[in-house]
């Protein structure tokens, strides 16, 4: 009995064009200075955590942020300063009575960068899935 022949797979041109587009956008993200800078900064989990937490909260105090991320004061201030220097996070210092308070919020640039990063991650998954 002759073995059943499988039909030869014909590549779907639309799918391969979409894949091509996604690959271009992925390559574009890394070659773009903004994308590469953000990728390098959020490689550190605490920084990605700060960005994620601030994306769903209008503003958070230093202690709230520290408790949510379960990190130390020193660690948080080092990483928050790096994000502030890059312009992704804004920091406001003020007094509540006699107690000094530090409040953090995401800047427009930070929100945009996080959105681009999320899109980039999704594109990466879709492309590698094939």
């Amino acid at each position: 009995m002759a073995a059943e022949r499988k039909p030869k797979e014909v590549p779907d041109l639309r799918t391969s064009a979409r894949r091509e587009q996604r690959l271009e956008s992925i390559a574009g993200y890394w070659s773009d200075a903004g994308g590469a800078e953000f990728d390098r900064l959020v490689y550190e989990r605490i920084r990605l955590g700060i960005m994620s937490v601030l994306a769903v909260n209008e503003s958070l105090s230093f202690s709230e942020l520290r408790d949510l991320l379960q990190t130390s004061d020193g660690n948080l201030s080092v990483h928050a300063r790096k994000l502030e220097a890059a312009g992704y996070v804004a920091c406001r210092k003020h007094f509540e009575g006699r107690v000094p308070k530090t409040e953090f919020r995401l800047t427009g640039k930070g929100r945009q960068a996080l959105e681009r990063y999320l899109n980039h991650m999704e594109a990466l998954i879709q492309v590698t899935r094939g």
Partner: protein
Amino acid sequence: MTGQPLRTPSREPIGLQDRAFENLSFIRRTMESSASMTSVPGWGGVLMGLTALLTAALASRAQGGASWLLIWMAGGGVAFAVGMGSLIRKARASGVQLSRGVGRKFLSALSPPLAAAAVLTGVLYRGDLLDAVAGTWLLLYGTAVLAAGAFSIRIVPAMGLCFMVLGAAAFLTPPAWADAVLALGFGGFHIGFGWVIARRHGG
């Protein structure tokens, strides 16, 4: 020489895909654990407050403890339905799922003290201790709101605390003041805090 390809196509992308998956799930987890439940209905609270004021007016004319309790329980049922309905409506409008994430935590914290209040109401009625009902309801409702408020905007736990303080004070007031105390709590606090939530947090 063998015909093996120099590069296997699967090797490189797997690392990238894993990292992307890991990062996305980390972001999702972090966002879910830190997000505030902002779907607390302000206007729904105002409506609950108006229901309580109407209930207090009716209950003040009740003849006997059993009918007084029945009126307040019916009023509470209506207020609960109004509150839940407006909570679901606001959550839907703002894209918050009450069955998962912060919405689920909010409801999980809210429910146990309310269930305890329901059980204790039966116990107090059977023990002929209706004088303690107002304080018990306000105290346990405050506990529920304070606990759920840990996952919500800052004004919600503040409201819970006010209910708890009023509930504790209610145990010290004469039993004849029960309707006034309940009207102040379930009526006044709901209207006052509901108004502020509605104005500041989108309805």
